[in-house]
């Protein structure tokens, strides 16, 4: 088991370098530069040249990349051009909000997804199955932006149960979590349902039925456990995605977070912030998949054996 973990972690390093290169190229090759966003009405043309030289933006691309990478490996994410503060501080300020929203939404969508999928698999082909599957499909096809506004209109304006926006207090977390989480239920539910239905065809289930174990007990204690394997993989993949994918929700609910930081900096082409944020998100995805793989290996001895 420890060798498995070590080997998987090792593979992450070349992935990290490739990701950093791609992130750097994307941000620098997109047209637009941060200096135009810095200049004010009335500033002289010489000021522009001075600022470009000050931030090293006139150096060749590969030189700028190696400089950034070098500082990165010592833990220095650089300083934001427009926000004029260390990128690390900016990310640290916004990360807790994104993590809270992301973790809560992930927990919500995983828990509900498993429950709905298990229910649908326990009563396959019935109204319960079709109704549940149809409902969650609705949740995943409605755009999160619109869903957020709808929830605000209904729960915050008409019913007055929750605040419209902001990030102070736990009550302001409910509607954003619902908005982000509802979209994620569908995938988890469907995967759970399919996995459980497949597992139900296996021989050992037949034996359990023959032994006289009650139907519900089989579903929950035996089949569900086996069905968790693909679900864990999905959840692991979604960790990084949920942190970055909450951008529109953060915008609608006026919450701070990595997504808002990223979008604003992207609009202004604040290279160090964009690079730093994208790197954080990429690392979240990488670590998420690593965690999922490790959990997978912990649960399923076949994976550990195969890897030996």
């Amino acid at each position, binding site marked *: 088991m420890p060798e498995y973990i070590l080997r998987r972690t090792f593979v992450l390093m070349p992935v990290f370098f490739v990701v950093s290169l791609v992130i750097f190229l994307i941000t620098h090759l997109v047209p*637009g530069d941060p200096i135009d966003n810095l200049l004010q009405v009335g500033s002289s043309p010489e000021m522009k040249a001075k600022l470009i030289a000050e931030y090293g933006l006139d150096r060749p691309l590969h030189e700028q990349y190696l400089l950034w990478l070098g500082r990165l490996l010592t833990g220095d994410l650089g300083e934001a051009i427009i926000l004029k503060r260390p990128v690390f501080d900016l990310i640290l300020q916004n990360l807790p909000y994104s993590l809270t929203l992301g973790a809560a939404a992930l927990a919500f969508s995983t828990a509900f997804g498993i429950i709905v999928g298990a229910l649908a698999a326990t009563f396959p082909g019935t109204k319960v199955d079709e109704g549940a599957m149809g409902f969650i499909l609705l949740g995943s096809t409605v755009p999160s932006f619109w869903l957020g506004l709808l929830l605000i209109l209904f729960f915050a304006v008409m*019913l007055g149960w929750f605040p419209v926006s902001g990030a102070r207090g736990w009550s302001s977390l409910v509607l954003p979590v619902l908005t982000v989480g509802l979209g994620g239920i569908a995938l988890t539910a469907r995967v759970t349902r399919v996995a459980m239905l497949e597992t139900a065809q296996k021989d050992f289930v037949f034996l359990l039925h023959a032994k006289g174990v009650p139907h519900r007990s089989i579903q929950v204690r035996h089949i569900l456990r086996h069905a968790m394997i693909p679900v864990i993989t999905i959840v692991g993949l979604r960790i990084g995605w949920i942190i970055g994918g909450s951008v529109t929700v953060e915008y609608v609910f006026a919450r701070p977070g990595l997504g808002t930081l990223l979008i604003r900096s992207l609009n202004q082409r604040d290279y160090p912030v964009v690079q730093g944020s994208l790197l954080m998100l990429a690392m979240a995805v990488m670590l998420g998949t690593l965690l999922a793989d490790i959990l997978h290996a912990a649960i399923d001895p076949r994976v550990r054996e195969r890897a030996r």
Partner: protein
Amino acid sequence: MLKRLQGLTLAASILVFGSAGAQEVTLVVNPNVIGAPTFNPLKATVINTQSTLIFDTLVQRDRNFSYHPALALSWESSGDGLTWTFKLKEGVKFHDGEPFNGEAVKWWLEAYRGSQVDNLVDAIATIDVPDPYTVKLNMKRPDPNLLFNLSSSWMGFPSPKAVKEMGEDYGVKGAVGTGPFILEEHVVGQYTVLRRNPDYTWGGLSQNKGPARIARITMREIAEQSTAFLELKTGGVDALLYVPTDFVPQVKAEANLAMVELMGSDVMYMPINVTSGPFADIRIREAVALAIDQKEILQGIFKGVGMEAHNFLISALSESKVDPKYNIGYNPERAKKLLDEAGWPVGSDGTREKDGKPFTVKLWAQSESEFKRVAEAVQAQLAAVGIKAEVTTFDSSTIREQYKANNHQLAIRSYSWPNADILNWFFGGARLGYPNVSMWNDAKAEELGATAQTGSRTPEERLINYTKYHEYVLSQFVFAPIYQPVQFMAYNKARIRFPDKIMTPEFDSVMALDMEIVE
């Protein structure tokens, strides 16, 4: 159980932003100042509304562009404009207890040199402080625009002690001014909490000359307009400092909301690239400019809210009162005649053509929805005179790169600036591409522009010179004017009250001092 939960969450949500608390007010700022990274004008990219409550300027500008005392009691300039003497108010203190005096003024003005905004003090050569409450500015050249700069929110005065002590962190971890409100807490892009300065007795234009009537103001930064409106509607906030035109009817429909019209300082226009294809011919430029129907756009897209634009400057500026023959308005008949004269007859399908090639133009717009809608209307108006326009949209940073690469022909854009020197910014030959989207480099324009900006000795001369420069720009048809938005503020009249007469262009310390809570 549900009722108790409902009650608990309602209580929690009231506590969240405290707008039900006595003596506390929550406002939502204009989206265009969201995300201000610092309160230090030497390093900032935008100065937000909060800054105008924390810092005072030497003079205040009112809606009619007259200047009034603020931190400066009085001022006079010598006949040749080369010396300005300011008498400062006495007894003014910074929030950290340090005195405001001539030394503080001199120190701060000199700090601008070499910064990103050094153009604000560019005309000043040296500064003398003959006594603690007198400042003498010795100018390199006469600068009739000095008062405008000194009234700008970019020139509020901070405590020199605080700036020196906080160093790099000044403006980020704290901001110390002389204003009616003290900075308590600030989260970038989210909210700012300000508390009343109890020692404030040096109000300028406000009716209330003493400390503010409100103990604490929270200013929230909400980017999504629907969310901001819903917050106002549910009482989560007490006022919106900016109401988008689309929401004006909704605000009017709510019984507890009132609206205030502020001075508009934006102009929406269409620059014409004079180096691209047929637009080198002034007749074609004039034709395109005359094809724009400002009234149709005002009524159809903006529902009559705002004003038509017929030249480059906002109507509040005296320099916009050019000789009426220079104003650009809708004249499709003359446009068609000019196009015929220029050798572009109408083809069989309604589009003009020359040598078998149809008259197609590229019409660009930024991706915000109002620009797209106007671009579509302009496309239809150009088609009516036989020009086929293809609309492409870009985000604001990309479009600037594209302008610099000179790939454009026509574009829909807008600016926000209440001073005639915006003409130099957008039409000066030294900044082709962006901001000079018209790519116009004309010797006579350069001369007129330089005379207006740095060669005028008195405000009267500046007005005449800028009007001349403005008229020349108009005569060359390097752009087409479209629309002047007005700005609205909405507030909950069951909670707060503003004076009937608004003296200043927008919400600032004057309005904050006169704002009252309805008991």
